[in-house]
C-alpha cells in the first residue's frame, strides 16, 4: 500500500483504493479482519479522520463492514464488487491516459495495439526496417 501525497487524488480515496488493491490481491481476505484505522494513520502519517473517511467509503459500498468492538472486516463478495467497479472505470482511468500519453509521443493507435499483442515488437520492427 502506497500513498502519493502529490497525487491529484484526495488522500482518503487513495487509501480506499489501496485497501481495495489488497483485497484484489488476496492480502486481505474476505471475512478477515483488516488493520485498524489507527495503524493506518500512524503508518502513513495521516490524520485519523482522513483514514476513517477512506475506510468509510468502503463501508458505504459494502466492501468492508464494522464488527462492534472488534474492528473492520472484509465483506463476503467484496472482491467481486471491486472487480465490477474497477472494470467499469478501466477505460477512463487507464485507456484514456494511455491514449493521451501516446498522442504526446506520436504513437498511433495501431502501434499501441501491436505493443499490447506482441510486447516490444514495435522497436524490433523499426530495427529491421533500418537495416
Amino acid at each position, binding site marked *: 500500500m502506497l500513498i502519493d*501525497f*502529490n*497525487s*491529484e*487524488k*484526495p*488522500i*482518503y480515496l487513495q487509501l480506499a483504493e489501496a485497501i481495495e488493491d489488497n483485497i484484489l490481491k488476496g492480502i486481505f481476505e474476505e471475512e478477515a479482519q483488516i488493520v485498524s*484505522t*489507527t495503524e493506518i*494513520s*500512524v503508518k*502513513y*502519517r*495521516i*490524520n*485519523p*479522520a*482522513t483514514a476513517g473517511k477512506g475506510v468509510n467509503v468502503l463501508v458505504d459500498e459494502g466492501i468492508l463492514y464494522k464488527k462492534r468492538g472488534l474492528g473492520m472486516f472484509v465483506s463476503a463478495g467484496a472482491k467481486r464488487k471491486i472487480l465490477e467497479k474497477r472494470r467499469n472505470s478501466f477505460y477512463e482511468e487507464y485507456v484514456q491516459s494511455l491514449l*493521451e500519453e501516446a498522442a*504526446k509521443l506520436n504513437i498511433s493507435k495501431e502501434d499501441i495495439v501491436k505493443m499490447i499483442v506482441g510486447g516490444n515488437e514495435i522497436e524490433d520492427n523499426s530495427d529491421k526496417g533500418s537495416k
Partner: protein
Amino acid sequence: MKTIQIKGVSKVYGRTKALDKVDITIESNRIYGLLGRNGAGKTTLLNLMTNKIFPTEGEIVIDGETVLENDKALRNIFYMTEQNLYPEGERIRNIYKWTKEFYPSFDMEYAKGLSEKFGLDTKKKVKDLSTGYASIFKAIAALASNADIVLFDEPVLGLDANHRDMFYRELISSYSESPKTIIISTHLIEEVASVIEEAIIIKEGKLILKQSVEELLSGAYIVSGEASRVDKYIQGKKCVGIETIGSFKSATVLEAVNNRDEALSEELKLEFARAELQKLFISLTN
C-alpha cells in the same frame, strides 16, 4: 468537550497590534495547524489561550469558562512553548515528576518509553540539551501530559528528519488512543499537511482562514504547460503562485477541482496537478 472559543480577541503592545479582533472556535478532539508567517501572532494567540498574557479586548473561553486566572480551566491545557521555561539546572526525569504534580494524568511510563525511543537521556539537565533534544524533551512532556487540550509551538524545531517523522507518528497514535484537541503552530507546512484536519491561517494579527485541509485543497488545482496556452486557460480565473520557466508556465487556479475545464485543457495540451498547502499558504499570506 474541549472546545475553545476565541471571542473578539485583540492584543496590543504599545503601538503594535499583535492580534486584531480574532474570532475562532476550536472544536474538540481535532488536530489543528496554526499557520502564519513570522510575527503573524501565532505565539501571542497560544500565550493568550493559556493565560500567560492577557488580552487587550475580547475573551477566551474553554467549555464555557474563561481562561483568565482560571486554574481549573488551565489544568486541562498543556502548552509546549518554543522557548524553554523549565529551570536550566534541573534533570529531565525530575521535570517529568513535577509535570505529574500539575497534570495528575501525566503518563510517566509513556514518557520514559518515548525518551528511550528518541534516545533522550533523562539524567541530563535541561541546560545540557541540544536544540533538537530540548524540543524532543518538551514534546514528550506534552504527549505524555494526557491533557484534554495540547498546544505545540514549533514542536519539531531542530529535529532531524527521522525524529520529526517519529514525532508525527507518536502524535497520531496518542491522539487515536485518547482523542484530544491539538493545535500545532509550525512553519513546516507540507510536513503537517496530512497530519492536521484543519488549518488556521493568520496574517498580521488577523484571521485569514479556518478550513479543513481537504476542502482547502479541493478548492484549488495546478495547471501547467506551454506559457501562452496556460495564459489562455487561466484567463478570467483567479490564480496564485504563477511560475514561468522559459516557455513553460504553471499556475495554481483558485477554483474547485470539480470545475476544471477538462476539454479546454485537452485542447491546449495542459496538465493538472493537486494544489499544495504550502503554495496556497504563501499566496494567502503574501
